[in-house]
């Protein structure tokens, strides 16, 4: 058995600069074409800015008010991040408990499903009254709730994915239930947790932003969009929308990067 049955598959995944260009270039080209078409459409048909401002006007507003937009992104982003961390921690912990105690799972499943459909519109004003209109707490809780649901369900699913052969193995080693959880159950669930986090990341931003519509302090992206629109500054409103998109993408890409990093260090 000195000669291996086959050489192991190479782990090198680099496709080179040409491959990268081929993945990046088409969407960029499409984006440029779409923006030009949009601008052409607005200019040629002389669309009023309150209906749809042109992308150049939005870009102009965006650069002119860059500091304000970035400030808004920081406020909303901070709320979303706190909500994301909070919701993820609670989601993972509760999922572990549910996996250990069948009864808890049966009790929690309908409640978590109910959480999933709680409308932010209804919840946010209630939370503002509870925590005061000057605090960001309500927004962070709204984001946490939105994050909790996908993280909980994905983690619970991952915890159930332990292969029977691994379970037998742990029993044959007379491993304690904590040892089995630590060595087999949790590592099996990790990729699922990160999938849940990826889904939750953009939800956190959207929820934190929407929650701003229903009260609380000014400064966030949601409040800025409404106030710019109500003062008929549509270009600026759209500039804040652009900021929201960038923020959402940032969160999503960070979660995606984290997921890739984890699945690489632990090839599944």
């Amino acid at each position, binding site marked *: *058995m000195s000669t291996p049955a086959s050489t192991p598959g190479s782990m090198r995944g680099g496709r080179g600069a040409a491959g990268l260009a081929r993945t990046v270039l088409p969407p960029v080209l499409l984006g440029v074409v779409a923006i030009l078409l949009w601008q052409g459409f607005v200019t040629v048909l002389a669309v009023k800015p309150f209906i749809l401002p042109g992308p150049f006007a939005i870009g102009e507003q965006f650069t002119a008010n860059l500091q304000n937009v970035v400030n808004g992104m920081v406020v909303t982003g901070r709320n979303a991040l706190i909500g994301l961390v909070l919701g993820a921690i609670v989601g993972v912990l509760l999922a572990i408990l549910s996996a250990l105690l069948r009864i808890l799972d049966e009790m929690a499943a309908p409640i978590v499903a109910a959480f999933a459909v709680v409308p932010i519109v209804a919840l946010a004003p209630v939370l503002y009254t509870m925590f005061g209109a000057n605090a960001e707490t309500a927004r962070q809780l709204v984001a946490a709730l939105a994050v909790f649901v996908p993280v909980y369900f994905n983690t619970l699913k991952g915890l159930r994915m332990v292969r029977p*052969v691994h379970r037998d193995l742990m029993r044959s080693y007379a491993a304690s239930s904590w040892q089995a959880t630590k060595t087999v159950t949790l590592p099996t669930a990790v990729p699922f947790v990160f999938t849940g986090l990826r889904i939750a990341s953009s939800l956190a931003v959207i929820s934190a932003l929407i929650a701003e519509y229903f009260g609380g302090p000014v400064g966030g992206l949601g409040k800025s969009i409404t106030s710019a629109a109500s003062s008929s500054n549509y270009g600026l409103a759209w500039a804040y929308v652009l900021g929201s998109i960038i923020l959402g993408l940032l969160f999503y890409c960070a979660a995606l990067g984290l997921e890739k990093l984890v699945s690489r260090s632990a090839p599944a």
Partner: protein
Amino acid sequence: MTTAAAPVEHAVAVNAVSRVFAGRKGASVTALDAVSLTVAPGEFVSLIGPSGCGKSTLLRLIADLDTPTSGSIEVFGKTARQARIDQDYGIAFQQAGLLPWRTVAGNIELPLELHGTGKAARRERAAELIELVGLSDFAGHYPDQLSGGMQQRVAIARSLAESPSLLLMDEPFGALDEMTRERMQNELVRICAETSAAVVFVTHSIPEAVFLSNRVVVMSPRPGRIRDVLSVNLGRMSDRGENLREDEDFFHSVSQVRELLHGSASTGARGVETR
């Protein structure tokens, strides 16, 4: 691993064991019916029979992964449960069952780690075993970078980690191709000669059972019973090698097992799986 005062006569003693699986609405399946079997220390015993004859069930009962409906099982004079808790056996399954997030070395160290062996000792033992199964160049690889045969070798190394005096193997080569399979068999014979552990080996391959075993236990299905036990006199483990497969006695034993498997009616002329 405890040192018994009185010398232990049997590695495994199965005494009138039955296992009935409860089905839906009162229907039940008798997987094993009053099976008795003993395995001596250092002896290699194969369990062979068609699917559903309860050979895997018997192995799982010995491993205390399942409990018998009636009858008793002793492993080195203790209950199967105590033997499991004392880690008196090593086990390998048809699926290698490696943890994909651990390297080859990490997988082999797993049982040692769970039972509190120090880091340095773990490293040393893993290196020894990796050498034994011929994977020295792959210690840092992950399971998904290895072929099926290599994964199974890691699983076998893992089952040997704590130098058990009993090895339980449930069709460990069942998913491998013929050539890899024969090489693994040669390897297992060598390892058994070196470790002098008793082995209970489940298989559905006649030549495999004959090549490896001191005794072949032929089982029949529905309900699972032991039909016959055949002693294979092909010499000591350490003397068995590749040329044994061409030996006259080997062929003779193979056709004996085949006749036992098919009952007296057929004499092996029919299309029999000869893996």
